[in-house]
């Protein structure tokens, strides 16, 4: 019935055009992103070869890759990486789930927010790494202390961002839900959660990054496996190449996490204009 004026109205908003133009720019961006590190590595290698930098502190990239291959074939690198990833994974969920629930509840209920908010924002500024001795004391040297450290790192950014996300939802949307007969659980599922989702994903990304930092620190002190332990052990053995291998793998994990979470964000917030 109104189809005749539809194309004009849609045309002004350009549904298909914008992403196309963006992806062209994105291709060039990612080419640049690969090029810069490659050039940097080449320069580094060159500087070591001509003895311009001290190879005891900055071993040549080729030496680092050689060490990496050795450690990979012996299975050592694999074992440490799996140990760290496992703690990261379990700790991530252990921190995420309560943070999500608490964050939404604090966003929705004024009195709960008043009750819990001082507790959360009061402990938030404590550097999480400073909690390590206490956590080791409570949970011992086993797996649990490492997992708890990751969980703490994930918990704070997620709970705070979730609460903020719920709070910034326009009150009108709650009125709409009420007017259209949504019950409590339905309001949670159709308004509070999706409305806060972009902010929640920001919190999750921050939390995952913090979790990665904390797992490395925790493994240096209280573990005999994991990438953190591997780096610390390399320092004690004065195996500088191994230290760099550890740093490289951690960096790769961080990068992979960011990619993965970006993908997850696209899936759970499909309404957001592509970033």
């Amino acid at each position: 019935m109104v189809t005749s004026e539809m194309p004009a109205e849609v045309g002004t908003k350009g549904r298909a055009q914008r992403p196309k133009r963006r992806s062209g720019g994105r291709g060039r961006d990612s080419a640049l992103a690969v090029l810069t590190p490659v050039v940097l590595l080449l320069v580094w290698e060159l500087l070591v070869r001509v003895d311009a930098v001290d190879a005891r502190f900055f071993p040549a990239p080729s030496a680092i890759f050689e060490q990496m291959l050795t450690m990979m074939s012996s299975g050592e690198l694999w074992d440490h990486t799996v140990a760290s990833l496992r703690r990261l994974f379990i700790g991530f969920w252990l921190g995420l789930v309560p943070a999500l629930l608490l964050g939404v509840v604090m966003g929705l209920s004024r009195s709960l927010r008043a009750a819990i908010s001082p507790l959360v924002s009061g402990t938030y500024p404590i550097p999480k790494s400073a909690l390590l001795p206490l956590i080791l004391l409570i949970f011992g040297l086993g797996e649990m202390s490492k997992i708890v450290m990751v969980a703490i790192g994930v918990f704070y950014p997620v709970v705070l961002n979730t609460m903020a996300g719920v709070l910034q939802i326009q009150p009108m949307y709650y009125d709409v839900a009420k007017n259209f007969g949504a019950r409590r659980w339905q309001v949670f599922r159709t308004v509070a959660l999706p409305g806060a989702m972009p902010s929640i994903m920001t919190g999750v990304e921050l939390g995952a990054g913090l979790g990665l930092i904390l797992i490395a620190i925790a493994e240096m002190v209280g573990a005999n496996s994991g990438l953190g332990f591997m780096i610390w052990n390399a320092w004690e053995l004065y195996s500088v190449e191994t230290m760099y291998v550890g740093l490289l793998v951690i960096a790769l994990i961080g990068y992979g996490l960011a990619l993965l979470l970006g993908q997850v964000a696209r899936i759970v917030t499909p309404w957001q204009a592509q970033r």
Partner: protein
Amino acid sequence: MAGTAVTGKRVPIDSTDIGRNTVGAETAAVAPTKRQDTDVKVAVRAVAKRFDTRSGTVTALDELTLDIPRGQFFMIVGPSGCGKTTLLRILAGLEDPTTGEVEVGTATEGRPENSMIFQGDSIFPWMTVWDNASYGLRMRGVPSGKIREVVGHYLDKTGLTAFRDSYPHQLSGGMRQRVSIARAFANDPDVLLMDEPFSALDEQNKTLLQSELLRIWDETRKTVVFITHSVDEAVTLGDRIMVMTSRPGNAKAFVEVPFERPRDVLELRHRPEYGDIVYDIWQQLRDEVERSQQAQAAAPARRGRFGLRRGGR
């Protein structure tokens, strides 16, 4: 019933109370009711609403009384800030009156009492067009086959079928407003409440949506309470128009619109009576708009003294 001094309540209409024709107005600009409506759907009895704010008490509505017959397309015009939205929110049950009462005729079995089209952008940005339009039905647990049928029908009527999987940010303002209309109609309420649904649209889109709205409404002839600040819109769409005073809001006049149904939105504007009615309403409004402007001119001084700003709607 008249004696029950229940305050701040919404109660179902007592069937013995039907047919009272309340006119809380000084003048009725055009001849009295031509149609013999006896079935009152919405009755507002001496409803007052006061808001306590930091800079004092704001009386948004002042003992407003009116009856809206079943099936009437009822329009409300008034200067901004006169309490139109407040009245609609009270009718929707989103707000309670401070004193007085609202009676709404019992809804037909299995139907929601009312659905509101909110002022401004109110469709959920995180839902597709389809999920937005089916929202009310999904919340009520209507079987999915029925949802497909009803929502499909209204998306078709609003020209949105091709955009069922689009998100609001991919749509123009006019199309988003269509989603809002589809959402309310698909919910199949007894009473439709609309708060300036077209005020953000350009003139062409507005005219287009007005005639679409009338076409969809003609299928069901539900009771509609429609707020607008456009006198033209009021005359184009309505059966009866309430002109409101500036704050504190009350009924200044009720105007009957004599045009037959179904109407042709454009043709209507050619008729000599159209201009007469628009002129009549403008006469009623002029004093009120001036008065509300004077009140606003006086306001900055008060705001300055307390250093406060009140967030109006």
